[in-house]
């Protein structure tokens, strides 16, 4: 089933080259991505609730957490393709984008999804590395899609920083391989199968695994966007076409975090406790929440602001997983909530960008009047992101705070202050953005001639997101929801 899913993604990457008009290319891409979503959901749904399974002769491994990731990835790529359809249609109509570019766009999107899914379902740590690097390669060209000055810079930075980071991760992988080959005769591919390593974890040398984890955290952490290594993230996310930014931010960062968690389980097993890894994740998390807070407060570009907010949320996830216990549950909820909310906000930012032709706060205002539907969805998304119930983020942040205050009061205090600053920054910048144009300088303001918009296909996708966010937010408070959460969190600890 998983093999079929990956093959479908590959077909999705090839199909655009069959058609000649932009419209046909888009339609076929949407059909393919719907299929991918369907198959992904069908394949991952049983393992989300049930026991972990090894598939295709040990090649793939699905436990509840990776099933959750597969569901999130396939869902977000589906809505991303739907919003790409209207996004690219408008760009083609304005001659900003040519048909070959549209084809390349969908092809790369397909490869990107393929690489992401492969990262998640690989049982072999080596393949996981290859797939994670492949996500960088596929998206670098998407970031450089417009071939404008800023996007080229962003793509170069992205390529160099992430590849360097992942190469450092390779050193970590080699250390793990070495540790495994010392204790046990199994060589070759099987030696770095995660399931195999997990069973022999207690016999692995803790010192070596520690070195490995340090490299993995620095290396893959670059891809997650944890703070000292985050420099590529705001650039790449703000310069990529908006639907791509949504996928990057919503699920790619999670995929990288997922890879770190896989290693964390091994290192914890080898060291016999999770204190050391938790401490590391915790402080990287704190750092990744406070630094973006400063940038969010004084941001001039709304896509960059959303990107910094992604860093902050990834930081929160690392922080809450580092807290351990209930914190891990909160981390999982945060992962779900953030993936759904942030991707929708980025897709929606694409609609706003198309109308106003600018990503600067100084040039955009009164979105609610000019774009009533997109504006309304943006507002809902913002509220969900700021953890207004019934958003799942409310539940996760509530749990993080209640656990954090007990376990790490000082770290929690710092994070709370940073969160308050972020809230202030969001409200300060987005309220005028949505409701008034008073802040626009008269000469600078670009007032679009058109006011109002039609209900488009992208709005359908946004409604799906909103319904899901609310439904999941409510569902997780019920008993089956909580059983599921405990089931998910058991994978991490």
């Amino acid at each position: 089933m998983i093999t079929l899913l990956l093959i479908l993604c590959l077909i999705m990457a090839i199909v655009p080259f069959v058609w000649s008009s932009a419209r046909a290319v888009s339609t076929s891409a949407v059909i393919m991505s719907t299929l991918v979503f369907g198959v992904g959901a069908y394949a991952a749904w049983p393992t989300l609730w049930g026991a972990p399974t090894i598939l295709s002769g040990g090649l793939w491994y699905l436990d509840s957490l990776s099933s959750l990731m597969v569901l999130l990835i396939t869902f977000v790529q589906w809505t991303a393709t739907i919003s790409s359809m209207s996004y690219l249609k408008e760009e083609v109509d304005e001659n900003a984008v040519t048909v070959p570019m549209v084809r390349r766009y969908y092809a790369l999107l397909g490869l990107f999804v393929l690489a992401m899914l492969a990262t998640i379902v690989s049982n072999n740590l080596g393949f996981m590395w290859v797939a994670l690097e492949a996500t960088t390669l596929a998206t670098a060209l998407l970031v450089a899609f417009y071939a404008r000055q800023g996007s080229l810079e962003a793509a170069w930075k992205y390529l160099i920083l992430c590849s360097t980071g992942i190469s450092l991760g390779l050193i970590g992988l080699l250390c793990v391989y070495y540790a495994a080959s010392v204790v046990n005769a199994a060589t070759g591919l099987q030696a770095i199968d995660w399931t195999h390593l997990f069973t022999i974890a207690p016999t692995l040398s803790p010192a070596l695994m520690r070195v490995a984890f340090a490299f993995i955290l620095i290396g893959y952490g670059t891809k997650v966007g944890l703070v000292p290594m985050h420099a590529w993230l705001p650039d790449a996310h703000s310069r990529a076409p908006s639907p791509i930014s949504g996928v990057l931010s919503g699920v790619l960062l999670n995929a990288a975090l997922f890879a770190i968690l896989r290693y964390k389980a091994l290192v914890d097993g080898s060291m016999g406790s999770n204190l050391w890894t938790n401490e590391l994740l915790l402080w990287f998390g704190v750092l990744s929440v406070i630094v973006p807070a400063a940038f969010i407060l004084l941001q001039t570009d709304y896509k960059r602001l959303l990107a910094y907010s992604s860093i902050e949320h990834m930081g929160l996830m690392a922080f809450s997983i580092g807290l351990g216990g209930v914190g891990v549950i909160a981390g999982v909820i945060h992962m779900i909530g953030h993936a759904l909310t942030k991707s929708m906000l980025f897709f929606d930012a694409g609609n706003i960008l198309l109308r106003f032709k600018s990503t600067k706060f100084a040039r955009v205002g009164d979105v609610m009047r000019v774009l009533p539907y997109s504006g309304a969805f943006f507002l809902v998304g913002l509220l969900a992101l700021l953890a207004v119930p019934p958003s799942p983020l409310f539940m996760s942040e509530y749990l993080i705070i209640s656990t954090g205050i007990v376990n790490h009061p000082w770290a929690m205090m710092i994070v709370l202050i940073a969160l308050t600053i972020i809230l202030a920054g969001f409200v300060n910048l987005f309220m005028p953005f949505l409701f008034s144009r008073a802040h626009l300088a008269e000469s600078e303001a670009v007032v679009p001639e058109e006011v109002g918009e039609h209900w488009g296909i992208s709005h359908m996708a946004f409604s799906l997101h909103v319904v899901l966010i609310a439904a999941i937010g409510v569902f997780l408070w019920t008993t089956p929801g909580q059983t599921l959460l405990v089931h998910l969190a058991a994978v991490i600890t």
Partner: protein
Amino acid sequence: MLTALLMVSRMRLASLVGLFRIQAFLLGFYALDLGIRLGELHLFIIAGLVLVLKAVVIPTLFLYVARSTGAVQRLESYLRPTTLSFIGTLLVLGAFLLARAALWGGTNYLIVGVSFSLVILGLLLLITRKDLFGQGMGFLVMENGIFVFGLALTGGTPFFVEIGVMFDLLALFVLMIGLVRRVHGEYSSVTTDYLRELID
């Protein structure tokens, strides 16, 4: 593996690429040697791949693109060559000390030291070079270092993973070349001086 040290101070593109070629040859022969000693078939294949890809294909393509974009032959760096060789030497010493401190089991600490110094020198190149070619080279040197590390520690990763890594590296390289060309088309230059719009 003195080549990396020399590379740090080399300013001319042609000599930089030439040194990289020599380094790749040494790397390939190391893998070959290891293959003979351990008697493993896959090491031979990998040695062959390294020789073909890193010693022939990549440097040749690099020079070709450099010529076709008419890139300046003299590259720029943030620091002077003499300063760089000094820092490079210090870093190599540091890397060897680190390798000795972290000496695990029966691995040859000389080789581990060499691989560490390659990684660190690659990073140094990556950081100090102003132009896209120099940065790309720095990345490749670092990759070589990791490759040596893998060979020294475990006799190479499993075959299929190694192939995957190679493939990724090649794709990365092609992408880099593509981006360099686009940047060149946009600015008619390959220095990163123009690429500093996005800071905050």
